[in-house]
């Protein structure tokens, strides 16, 4: 039974112990902000990050598996906080989205400065990395975004233990953490930064605090090596979205990254063969070097994507952050990790670690993300409908092409789509801009135009 609930006067005093379970971005951000703030108010905090993985090795076993895209707005926020991201941590800046359709490409260029995105590797890069290319740069070995953040946390004073915590108990005055059946320590605060791929999230569900981990869907990520030169010449600084009908596939995009391209797929029952079929589609194959064939083996993983919010992500002396709590729908998971981690760190250091304080000062951040996801769901339902309706899709691409070729029209539709794909803006703001009467009118005119052209063609036939 949980005896800790209901205490509204729990503060972190000098020497207080914080156990952060998980060394991904959320865990590292929490550690950095908590230690900085504690230092600022003259409090001595003993913080340990428990992370079993080393993010320096190649392949999925040392990678926190995601598409690895960060928005420029997050890079700016982190820079203000004193966390400077630069190459080789930032792999490549993306300035264009390229919609690949059977009737040609439509380019969506970054409509303004400061709205860019960049790609990162979460771990040490894909398996079978070309050593000749990594040896070009002496720093190239340390390309992991997660390793960089955990290193920044260490510089702030965090201790890192390569141990997997498999049990947390709440039946004493303070929570206790265990590994392989052995008690390691008690803690004044346990921070669940374990994401949704980990069994650790399930461990928190069994604590009796009412925590339920978020609902998830599976994604399929593959890293295909084609060499730096071909990545540059064939894919440039653009994320390619393929609007092709492949059974069971909802969304496919190719993201250039170093000497690899990342193929991200969403849908039901996606397997390695689905990826190979996609790569063999003539429209896709055309983007790859001549006489290129889909490889038999490539680095791949099946990460979970958070599509709902966790319930009760906090209790006395316990707080869940990042993917284990609330995250933005399909976008900017690292940005959500930053927001929830910072709110939790500020609450713990400045107000206390009771359920009441987390409710008052931490939960509003989660609620803001969850409310925004409501608008995200609406926007994605609209784009899904457009994608499934050829006439409307053609009208949208026409409108987009028109805007890109005639800047004097303004980039109303382009900015809406750009922000929707990049995660640079809140879904609510994008929603308000998308339902601008002028933009809707132009869209309707384009729909009628497409219908008219189709009728004309049919009439002639």
């Amino acid at each position: 039974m949980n005896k800790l609930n209901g205490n509204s006067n729990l503060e972190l005093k000098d020497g207080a112990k914080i156990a952060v379970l998980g060394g991904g971005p959320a865990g590292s951000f929490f550690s950095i902000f908590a230690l900085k703030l504690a230092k600022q108010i003259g409090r001595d905090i003993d913080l340990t990050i428990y992370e079993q993985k080393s993010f320096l090795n190649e392949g999925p076993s040392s990678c926190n598996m995601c598409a690895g895209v960060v928005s420029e707005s997050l890079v700016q926020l982190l820079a203000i906080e004193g966390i400077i991201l630069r190459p080789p941590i930032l792999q490549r800046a993306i300035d264009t989205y390229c919609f690949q359709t059977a009737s040609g490409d439509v380019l969506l260029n970054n409509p303004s400065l400061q709205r860019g995105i960049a790609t990162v590797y979460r771990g040490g890069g894909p398996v079978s990395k070309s050593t000749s290319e990594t040896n070009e740069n002496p720093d190239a070995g340390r390309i992991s975004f997660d390793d960089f953040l955990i290193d920044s946390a260490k510089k702030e004073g965090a201790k890192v233990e390569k141990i997997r915590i498999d049990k947390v108990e709440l039946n004493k005055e303070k929570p206790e953490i265990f590994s392989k059946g052995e008690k390691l320590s008690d803690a004044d605060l346990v921070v669940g930064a374990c994401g949704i791929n980990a069994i650790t999230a399930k461990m928190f569900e069994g604590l009796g605090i009412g925590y339920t981990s978020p609902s998830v869907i599976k994604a399929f990520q593959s890293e295909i090596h084609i060499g730096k030169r071909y990545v540059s010449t064939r894919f440039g600084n653009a994320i390619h979205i393929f609007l092709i009908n492949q059974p069971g596939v909802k969304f496919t995009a190719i993201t250039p990254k170093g000497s690899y391209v990342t193929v991200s797929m969403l849908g039901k029952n996606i397997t390695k063969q689905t990826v190979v079929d996609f790569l063999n589609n003539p429209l896709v194959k055309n983007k790859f070097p001549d006489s290129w064939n889909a490889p038999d083996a490539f680095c791949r993983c099946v990460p979970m994507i958070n599509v709902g919010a966790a319930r009760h992500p906090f209790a006395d002396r316990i707080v869940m952050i990042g993917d284990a709590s609330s995250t933005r729908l399909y976008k900017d998971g690292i940005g959500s990790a930053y927001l929830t981690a910072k709110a939790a760190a500020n609450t713990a250091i400045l107000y206390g670690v009771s359920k009441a304080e987390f409710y008052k000062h931490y939960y509003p951040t989660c609620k803001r993300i969850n409310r925004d996801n409501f608008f995200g769901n609406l926007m994605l339902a609209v784009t899904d409908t457009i994608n499934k309706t050829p006439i409307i899709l053609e009208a949208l691409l026409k409108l987009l092409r028109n805007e890109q070729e005639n800047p004097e029209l303004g980039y109303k539709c382009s900015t809406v789509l750009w922000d929707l794909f990049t995660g640079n803006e809140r879904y609510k703001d994008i929603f308000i801009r998308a339902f601008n009467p002028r933009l809707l009118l132009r869209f309707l005119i384009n729909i009628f135009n497409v219908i008219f052209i189709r009728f004309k063609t049919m009439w002639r036939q």
Partner: protein
Amino acid sequence: MKNEESSLGKDYKDGCIIFEENSIGKEMYIIISGKVKIVKEKGTVETILATLEEGEFFGEMSLFDNNPRSATVKAIGNIKLLEINQKDFLKRISNDPSLAFRILEKMSQRIRQTDEKLLDHVLEMNNLCKDFHIFT
């Protein structure tokens, strides 16, 4: 579609002026790589007020007080800067006021440094005045 590999931020070459004293600016800058010097120019004489390195920021004063730039900033070597516009910056501060902590901390440090320099100059002036009196 650009093919050359690029990263976020804007590149400036050695000696390039990022902004000039008395110009109107609505951006602050964070140094991603390289160094900049903050200078005051009177005629042909250039006085270096400070040199800033990676991770440091400048241009934030105009974001808060809307006044023209107080000094000129020049690149030392090739540099990369991250630019943040006033509206975005103020939006972010209103969403998360604690974001201003580091800026306030840096601004406080700069005021302290200026105080120390001012004190040194006043003491130097006093000594010069004393010497002048003894001499006369």
